[in-house]
């Protein structure tokens, strides 16, 4: 890297600017990463809770469905299910958690009252009601789990990206910039030293020349001494 850098003052200033920017970026990204991790831990707790609830609701719904199929018959349960054409509706919106866009899933017509399930009340039993209710609860848990787990996945991806950026800054970009800075500084110092040395040399040479000129002049002056009256 350092070999490609021109050791000029302009370049040094530019590198110093970049170091400044990268250090600030590094600090900000580190803060973002830590913030994301904290948010992620909260979502993780929620996700674990939702997952636990989901498994519980699934087992409960399956047990109640099995009991309804056993006691009322598969034909009766399928018939009751066929009596409803309307499907639950899901709408998705989004919210921003520290720059990460996560979905907010809203459902409607999942939980139904006894007269909204399609089947008649007079010819059915509480077993079918309980199985339907348990499945409605399960569906709500699934929708909530989808929201929380998608948020968790997106947060994880963002944490990973941020971590990579922090690491790239910390272990690659900043060390390279420091190295370049040092290289240019060294080069510039060297150039300065050379310049001083060169100037000194010039000065010394000039002084020498001046001295020689003076000596020559002095010699010349002594050779052409004026003849006095005594001669």
């Amino acid at each position: 890297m350092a070999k490609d850098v021109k050791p000029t003052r302009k370049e040094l200033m530019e590198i110093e600017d970049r170091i400044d920017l990268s250090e600030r970026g590094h600090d900000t990204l580190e803060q973002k990463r830590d913030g994301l991790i904290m948010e992620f831990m909260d979502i993780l707790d929620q996700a674990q809770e939702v997952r636990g609830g989901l498994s519980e609701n699934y087992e409960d719904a399956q047990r109640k469905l099995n009991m309804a199929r056993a006691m009322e018959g598969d034909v009766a349960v399928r018939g009751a299910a066929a009596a409803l054409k309307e499907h639950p509706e899901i709408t998705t919106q989004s919210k921003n958690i520290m720059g990460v866009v996560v979905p907010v899933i809203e459902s409607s017509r999942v939980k139904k009252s006894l007269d909204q399930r399609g089947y008649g009340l007079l010819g059915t039993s509480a077993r079918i009601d309980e199985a339907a209710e348990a499945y409605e609860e399960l569906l709500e848990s699934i929708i909530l789990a989808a929201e929380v787990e998608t948020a968790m996945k997106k947060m994880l991806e963002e944490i990973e990206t941020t971590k990579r950026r922090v690491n790239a800054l910390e272990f690659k970009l900043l060390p390279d910039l420091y190295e370049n800075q040092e290289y240019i500084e060294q080069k510039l110092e060297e150039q300065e030293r050379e310049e001083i040395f060169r100037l000194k040399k010039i000065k010394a040479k000039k002084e020498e020349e001046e001295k020689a000129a003076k000596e020559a002049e002095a010699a010349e002056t002594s050779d052409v001494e004026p003849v006095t009256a005594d001669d």
Partner: protein
Amino acid sequence: MSTAGSPNPEYVNARVRARRGALFSDEEYRKLTRMGPAEIARFMEESAYEEEINALGSRYSGVDLVEYALNRNLAKQFNDILDWAEGWLYDLIARYLRKFDAWNVKTIIRGIYADIDRDSIDADLIRAGEFDDRFLNRLLDAGTIEEVVTMLKGTIFGGSLAVAYEDYENTDVLVPLENALDRAFYENLLGGLRGGESLALYREFLEAEIDFRNARNALRLARSGADIDPSEYYIEGGKLFSAAELSQLAANPEELVTRIRESTYGDELSVALNELEDADSLISFERALEAALLEYSDSLGSVFPLSVGPIISYILAKEREVENIRAIARGREAGLDGDEIEEELVIL
């Protein structure tokens, strides 16, 4: 065979008594609860269900085979009874078996509504009611619910179904049609029932059935917390509640339970009512109602042995057998252990 001719309770009772003897005993249920679904099918193949298991064996397997064979056998048994019966005896039996007509019409309507193919709907029918195969096939061929409603004109379901059809058209949900069918069945149970000591017992049994249905529905409405007027679901003919009383009691389940406890059914249902007060589920209460009804019908049979009583008692016992075997097979398939399944069975 029909309402024409003189009633023949002696003949029908003799035939039914023989059939009753072939019902599964407690010991056989106990054996079944220890078997897997395939073993249950094999066991049934060596019992009164042999013909149905063999006929359906190529189309279904496992628990589905058991369930369809049970339904077909039930239909055959009840059709035989209707074939044997003559005169008013036929009418008394047919009015109870019309619940299968209501079931079949509901199944056909649901099938059309959910766009299910004809063969699948046909497989789910239980041809145990009064409608003959030709009429049921015509209903199956109907392309729309309106056609079904039109075809049912002239049956006990025709009037209320035509009214409910308007509601259905406005709401596009099947609830009004299904309720109209069940209501027509229940309200015709007692219509035109003649006097006589043996029929008084039959009437009591039918009233109990209506009372139990009203109590179940009121409790379901109360538990659901839905904003529904209970009087809409009230079935006329019971002796325990009036429509207004039921509306009032449905808002207060505790009072409803007290009312049942203080009624003539109180003693038979006391254990179930205690359970209902403690638990959150209605299921054990419904099971207790079914057991009470079964017991009621059993006593019906022993008081007047040559009346409709023993026949209705057999019909209920046969239905219970079918429900018990299906519960065992489905329970075993779902991995329930023998004791759990036995708890769910209703055995006299």
